[in-house]
């Protein structure tokens, strides 16, 4: 059975094509493209990706409008059925605004847009996205965001740590995120939101500060988790 992935596009998404290219490169099957106004997702999906960008122009708050769009209701239902969902950057903001993930993404502590490749420490090694990693795994993946400062209250952060729901931490915190958090998992581990862009790191590039292929493994892990299931 071919791997059936969907990439959602909101008005103002700008990493949706990169996401679709990454998925096709890794799975060999083109991703289905879904528009924000679609009330239904294709059937029998193996994976849903919410891409980066500036959905609805970041009006009100980053991700706030997209979280209320028709397609998100379908994404929430799919997530409840256990379909793996990956939200990257603006997609992560949409996931927190929709309530699928806890916390919020605030303006970067340094007030500036941060655009560079960062090193991530893998904190969770059991989710469908991270199951082939070990505690020493480091990934180099680009970030590009203005609102990536992860916030949750102390009790929530303690609970996330106790439940092994921190997927990734920044080796050097670029945005002021609480406890260096770069990616968070849902309670069942099947929804991942992360600010770094794995879809921008799927092939080695000549320039050491561009590209890299460390993002591939996150997608490959999802594919493996489905084969194993």
């Amino acid at each position, binding site marked *: 059975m071919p791997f059936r992935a969907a990439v959602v596009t909101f008005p103002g998404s700008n990493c949706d094509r990169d996401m679709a290219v990454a998925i096709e490169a890794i799975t060999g099957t083109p991703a289905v493209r879904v528009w924000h106004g679609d009330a239904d997702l294709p059937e029998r999906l193996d994976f849903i990706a919410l891409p980066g960008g500036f959905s609805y122009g970041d009006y*009100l*708050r980053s991700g*706030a409008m997209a979280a*209320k769009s028709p397609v998100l209701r379908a994404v929430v239902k799919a997530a409840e059925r256990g379909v793996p969902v990956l939200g990257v950057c603006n997609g992560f903001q949409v996931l*927190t*605004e929709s309530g699928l993930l*806890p*916390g*919020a993404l*605030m*303006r*970067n*502590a*340094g*007030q500036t847009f941060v655009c560079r490749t960062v090193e991530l420490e893998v904190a969770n090694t059991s989710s469908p996205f991270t199951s082939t990693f070990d505690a020493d795994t480091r990934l180099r993946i680009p970030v590009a965001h203005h609102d990536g*400062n992860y*916030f*949750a*209250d102390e009790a929530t952060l303690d609970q996330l740590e106790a439940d092994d729901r921190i997927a990734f931490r920044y080796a050097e915190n670029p945005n*002021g995120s609480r406890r260096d958090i770069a990616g968070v998992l849902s309670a069942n581990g099947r929804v991942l939101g992360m600010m770094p862009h794995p879809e921008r790191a799927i092939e080695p590039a000549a320039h050491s500060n561009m590209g890299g292929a460390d993002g591939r493994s996150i997608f490959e892990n999802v594919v493996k988790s489905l084969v194993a299931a």
Partner: protein
Amino acid sequence: MKVRILVRLKPGVLDPQGRAVHHSLDSLGFEGVEDVRIGRMIEMDVADGTSDETLTKMCEQLLANMVIEDFAIEKVDPVGEPA
């Protein structure tokens, strides 16, 4: 009915924008500014009978992010002053 929604960061949530503006006020020579917090004001024209409960739901579901923000609802008379 005109309604004004004030959305602001909860106490204890760091406000980098407010801090940057505070710094700018200091550098312009304004003395005695103790703290600056930046929020958002949303003005709405709603049906006269709109209940407080409905307005609260609007805030909780969309206008404010309850993880980081508080809100206050002010009903405004036609002259534009708080009722």
